[in-house]
């Protein structure tokens, strides 16, 4: 166990994501880091959250980390285990407060690509996962938080394929396209946390990870980042308590929080 080593970027991300989760909320999570973050939140500041999975499980009793979104640990003695269509229906119907999604690319309006790299779906440079539940949650859930790494290729001005609509072309265009919910409220990368300027819906720096200057964030972004007024605050750092819980109780085997070698 790496119990006395400093937090690695994935652990820091997991902590930042967990802070987006308020107590007494219903949280829709997929596999990976958001699942880690939700479980960390439950074990720290948000003990009374209800976790919902697209496989249909919700509110499982505590156990090990699920190995997949269909894992029995996502519906472990759940009182309710829904069919998939109904599970997503809960987002439409206002029973879900927040959902977390990964991305391969995100643009200045929070539109997400998880389909492919390249311009042609039928002959891409690399085919990725496609939507899964990504589009469904983006289309329906009240608040979305996007999570991923930050490079100019991953933060392009225009994504190669809009898998999931964020704020589309900004302004009121998301609503005009017929979608519901507020859309993305935050983008979280190792460099910082971004929100969207209320009028234009363009991505804006909210806080930056300690030690990361604005220039780094801008240089690793393919479009102009908006800045908040005044000085840019620092993102919170993972507390020793949270790091301890993460390493010993949430993901003791480091399945999701070990940096790939």
């Amino acid at each position, binding site marked *: 166990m790496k119990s006395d080593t400093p937090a690695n970027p994935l652990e820091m991300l997991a902590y930042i994501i967990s802070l987006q989760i308020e107590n007494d909320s219903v949280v829709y999570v*997929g*596999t*990976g880091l958001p699942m880690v973050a939700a479980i960390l939140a439950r074990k720290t500041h948000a003990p009374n959250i209800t976790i919902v999975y*697209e*496989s*249909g*499980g919700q509110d499982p*009793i505590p*156990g*090990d*980390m699920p*190995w*997949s*979104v*269909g*894992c*029995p*640990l996502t*519906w*472990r*003695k759940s009182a309710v*285990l829904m*069919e*998939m*269509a109904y599970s*997503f229906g809960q987002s*439409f119907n206002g029973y879900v407060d927040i959902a977390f999604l990964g991305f391969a690319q995100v643009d200045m309006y929070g539109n997400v690509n998880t*389909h492919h790299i390249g311009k042609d*779906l*039928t*002959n*891409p440079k*690399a*085919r*990725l*996962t*496609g*939507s*899964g*539940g*990504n*589009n*469904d949650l983006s*289309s*329906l859930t009240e608040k979305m938080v996007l999570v991923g790494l930050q490079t100019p290729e991953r933060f392009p001005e225009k994504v190669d*394929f*809009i*898998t*999931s*609509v964020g704020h*589309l072309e900004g302004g009121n265009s998301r609503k*005009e*396209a*017929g*979608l*519901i919910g507020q859309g993305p409220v935050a983008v979280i990368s190792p460099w910082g946390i971004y929100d969207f300027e209320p009028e234009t819906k363009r991505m804006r720096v909210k806080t930056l990870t300690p030690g990361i200057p604005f220039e780094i964030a801008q240089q690793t972004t393919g479009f102009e980042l908006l800045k908040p007024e005044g000085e840019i605050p620092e993102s919170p750092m993972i507390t020793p308590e949270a790091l301890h819980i993460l390493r010993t109780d949430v993901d*003791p*085997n480091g*399945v*999701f929080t070990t940096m790939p070698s």
Partner: protein
Amino acid sequence: MSKFSYNQEALKNLNIEDTSILDSLVDFESARAAHLKKPRSKVDKRISLKEAVAEYVSDGDVLSDAGFAYVRTPHQAYFEMMRQGKKGLQVIGAPNTNQSYMINYGTASYSHNSYIGAEMRGTDRNYSRQLKEGKVKILSEWSHGGVALGLKAAQLGAPGLMSKQMLGSDIMKHNPYVSTIQNPLRNDPDPVAFIPALYPDVVVIHAQVADKFGNAFIYGPVVNDSALAVAAKKLIITAEEIVPESSLRYGNGKKGIVIPFIYADAVVELPFGAVPGNMPGYYYWSRQWWEKTLRYASPVEEKFIEHFNEWVMDTKDQFEFVEKLGGAKWVAEARRQTKAAENDNEDIDFAYQEFTVDNDPGIYY
């Protein structure tokens, strides 16, 4: 002219010229006609997997996956389709990585996509390679929820429904079946996505238990299977165990759903039918097998073929597959794992040595 009016932009983006290949999936009239011909009486429908695949899976069929995320996936039936040399299937995946291994053998040639990959285990580099080489043609892109709604519409006997999913995205431009329309009840602009009812040609559902008539009990995530059972023109039930009908009526203490026998064309007793996936109550994933597949085999065509030749084409049946995973020891450990995950066994340590290219454990928990 086709009786169907497809999304022209999507046809163009997907380079689909002959649209007749798209028709079967949305033709509720032919599905109804097929269902009206199904046997109505309670007869013993048990046959072998070989017979079921030979009789009910035809080249070119639209095959929809059942189960979800490698849970209750009828892998062993898919392996048998490959061994029998079935060709040119259209596949609806849950995820499509359950069928990407069929592409390399020509068993699957077309895909309706909603998710390709294996979550944290990584993207599906084999699918990506097959796509770029033109071995698989994409017929439609979906979200998971979009497919789920199309199947639910079928189950409800509704020719289609309206959704707020997929709107405004590029998925709408790469799916010939869906279109953006105005909500008919609204005066103000209210765009909705029209999603038609989906009727696959053939579906295999792997259930925990079934009776010989085809009543099939599923517990754990049902996902889309209650709808798939209704919608499928041909339905093969495979089950870990065949139980007396009375046990489905009287003895069943577990929560779950039963698929009625009138939908079933064939019943196959198939212990380990979802191996190497997870079967709630019976066995956990063979995690190391999936890691080997995705990390060792998928990146390179030759290794991929070698791997699937070994595990599928040159493997007689699911029993031989389980022997290769680790035999009786694997059986006991895999059951212990899924039951512990379900809290029906004392908690265990789920830690294990991941497969890496440098460390092949030879036994695949």
